[in-house]
């Protein structure tokens, strides 16, 4: 794995790789070089299998991380390429022509993260959700609990008590707690 990155590092810009295990490495690449790297890895280096394509929302840094995990089935090596996208105008480059199955992942990312992949087949069609009008739900700023509370009703009549405050109320309500 190290030799592989060493071989490629002259031609492409890699971030510092993380060698998570002997057979698993994460490395950040530039979005502009992604396609070329993927093509080369697929056709030359034997990383023929797209294991998964997904995104991570680093909302604090205003970025989406796309993770392209590709696998060399002969050598049993997995390489995960990270591509950082600007969260504001999240658009990725479709790779459905390299791996037709990527179209499904891209549809999901479009729906769940709002990351667009222009040119990917049926990318704008509804995939999992139906009639969804809110924020893409996998975005960190979408609060699923609040949405659920505002949409679906709880069965009423439940109430809980915090042991500490309950004991204070029952046992020492008079004590000047936190006398400053």
């Amino acid at each position, binding site marked *: 794995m190290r030799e592989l990155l060493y071989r490629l590092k002259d031609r492409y810009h890699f971030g510092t790789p993380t060698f998570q295990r002997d057979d698993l490495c994460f490395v950040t690449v530039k979005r502009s070089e992604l396609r070329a790297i993927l093509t080369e890895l697929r056709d030359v280096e034997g990383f023929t299998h797209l294991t998964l394509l997904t995104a991570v929302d680093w909302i604090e840094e205003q970025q989406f991380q796309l993770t392209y995990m590709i696998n060399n089935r002969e050598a049993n090596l997995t390489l995960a390429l990270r591509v950082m996208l600007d969260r504001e105008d999240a658009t990725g480059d479709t790779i459905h022509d390299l791996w037709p199955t990527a179209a499904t992942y891209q549809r999901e990312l479009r729906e769940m993260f709002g990351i667009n992949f222009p040119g990917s087949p049926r990318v704008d069609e509804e995939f999992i959700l139906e009639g969804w009008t809110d924020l893409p739900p996998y975005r960190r700023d979408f609060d699923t609990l609040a949405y659920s509370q505002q949409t679906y009703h709880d069965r009423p009549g*439940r109430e809980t008590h915090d*042991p500490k405050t*309950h004991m204070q109320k029952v046992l020492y309500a008079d004590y000047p707690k936190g006398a400053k």
Partner: protein
Amino acid sequence: MSLRDVLSPFTAWKHVINDPVTIKDPFSREASDRYRGFHQNDMDKCIGCGSCEEICQNAAIDMVPVEGQNAGPGDSGLRPMIDYGRCCWCALCVDVCMTGSLTMSNEYTWVDSDPDAFRFVPGVDAKSWDLEPKGYQREDERRLTGTVRAPMGETCPEDRIGNFDEIVDGFTAEQAIIEADRCVECGLCVATCPAHMDIPDYISKVRDGDYEGGLQLLYETNPFSQACGRICTHKCETTCAAMHEGDAIAIRWLKRSITDSVPRERYFDLIQKPDVPETGQSVAIIGAGPAGLTTAYDLARKGHQVVVFEALDKPGGMMRYGIPEYRLPYHVLDHEISVIESMGVEIRCNMRVGQEISMDQLKTAYDAVVLSIGLHQGRSTRVPGSEKAEAAIDLLRRITAGEEVPVPEQVAVIGGGNVAMDIARSMARLQKIKHGKVGVTVTALEELDRFLADKEEIEEALEEGCDIFPARGPQEILVDGDTVTGLRTWKVDAIFDAEGRFAPKYDEDDEMVHPAGMVVEAIGQMADISLLGAELTEQLEWNRGRIMIDADGQTSEPWLWAAGDAVSGPDVIHAVADGHRVAVSISRMLTAKREALQ
């Protein structure tokens, strides 16, 4: 297409003659022994700590007050109510349960047309599976929160016996985090702590490494956090949820780790006097012990002028003169008091009220007076020869003050409390220094497991070479002329009766004589109230020998409050709590007075 392929499917017909595999009665089929069925809860074991609620990812559990379970030490009185409209039977609640009270039966059938029916308090709402012994129980002790206390380093007995250096090392940062990590933040301990310190909150500060935030939190409820971090009676640890299976959280040591981790000089930045206007009112406090100084700290922070009168050389009260240096080093206490002084508290030492200044003078010169005089007189057994015995409390004071005390090769101590251990271990150190060996005998009425002293204290005393004779009743202090030669004791058959009341029974045949050149009585203490004078003593209302105070610590006199050991019994943290209570009461009175004038 071969003929075989046409015919072979017909072989299935052979099953026609087989016995059917159908379960004849599927309704009474029992689930497996480990089946995670409906919940059971042992009401006697459950402490209502709410860990089950905390871990439930489905928000299926509510802690609710139930009939017949009252809040008390180590029990919040709440019990988990489980919503079977949420539960997923993952049994994490069973795994995390701190006492092992929550289990699961292997019952699995519950149908109802009312959707609101699927909510119940196991163990309270009677269910058919309450007594079912089968069902999921965790294999061994709880394993989702640590059970073993982080090890605490301390000086080995051989190295500590010859000096008065502090024994306990205190947690390292790593140990503190490991120990703090075990806390489940139920908060049961908060009710037990007399000062109701925010224990779970400061423990979580330790875990996050935010020691400065933790220190500020400590000072909100306790200006003697450094001392309490070392010598507190830590009643909180007796109600810790973790103690039921495993060790209680080392709350005291964690408090200490906060105070030790913040650099000394940072204290003055972190604990600053709030920006409040001076009220121009003044309060006199008698006794610079934990109760008096806590009152002083609180009142000074409210803008009042506070003067503390201390009879002895240095402030600190029993923390300085009662507790040996190896448990609470003087420099720690000095620093602690300097933080309080930085609030503008004035401490006048060597000012014995009743001699240097009278109560009347205080009454006229100050808006309020606080009596926090502690228990500085030792009790005596009054057995024959006891007039030759030493009082532990005097001896400790003399040792602290640096006075010369007689150190015979053999010392007998009467008493099984912490003071007895303190004097025994102090004498042992002096003996080691003077004679090179330890010769201390401790006798007490109680059985070893009913000693009033902390377990660690007893263990450490034993490690240091003190001999402990439990269940021995002192009969006579043997005196030869002017010198003490020993202590004669009888075996105590039973000290308490069936109802747990004190009713000593002696076995007169089992007599022992403990040879000793000095006998120290450490059976109890009382307050020296001579400073009040006969008139005030007569004016005040009393309650069973102690000055009567109301819930706020005020005596029957409108200008006089009392706090600390003298009214609440010997305990530092109790004294601190008293101090807070009295300070609030006084402040309220002073505010009212101010407002009345305006």
